[in-house]
């Protein structure tokens, strides 16, 4: 019996459907009301999903930003690993509401969840 699930997202937005799928899965689990906690941790290139100035309409893709907003509206935590983002693209503006954390805190976040699934 699981009380919490963590959606670990390593994949960047748009080239693959993985990141979008990950966020929809997290949302669906929350909406179902069957699992109290469903949070998202963005690591590596997955951190790029939280960039504020994405324009998915340029390639006719659904918005990963909206998917994150939907999650946060339902009180999911969305964590972004600072070091990973910094190393990839330096300083960029992120979506309002995401929690920027360091690797040490990311380790704790993973440990706090009963189940972890990776995208």
């Amino acid at each position, binding site marked *: 019996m699981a009380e919490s699930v963590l959606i*670990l997202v*390593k994949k960047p937005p748009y080239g693959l459907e993985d990141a979008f799928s990950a966020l929809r899965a997290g949302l669906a689990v929350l909406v179902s009301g069957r699992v109290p906690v469903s949070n998202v941790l963005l*690591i*590596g290139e997955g951190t790029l999903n939280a960039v504020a100035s994405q324009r998915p309409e340029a390639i006719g893709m659904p918005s990963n930003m909206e998917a994150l907003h939907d999650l946060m509206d339902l009180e999911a935590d969305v964590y972004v690993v600072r070091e990973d983002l910094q190393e990839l693209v330096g300083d960029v503006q992120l979506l309002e509401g995401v929690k920027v954390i360091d*690797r*040490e805190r*990311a*380790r704790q976040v*993973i*440990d706090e969840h009963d*189940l*972890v*699934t*990776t995208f």
Partner: protein
Amino acid sequence: MRSKLFILLKSPHDFDSLDLMVSIGEGAPTAALLFEDAVLFAANEKKGLELLSVVNQVYMIKDDWEARGLPLVMTSFKMIDYPEAVDLIMEKYEQTITL
């Protein structure tokens, strides 16, 4: 800290999460379980030792290894079958994380 079993499916060449494994595994009992192309870690000393240096134990699926017909370099990797893999997942480790 919950004990952690890392599931690997990608070849050493494609595997990009060694750093992540280190930081996630810190302070917890850890192991890696190799499926599919990840068994290639057992054929390469450099990659194999790298992996072994970040987890307490490495297991790999015998069938996947044998299919590739390579000389075994990492003799300390434990060759297991699917029922043993189930025991690792269900009994021996508390969290299963695919990387």
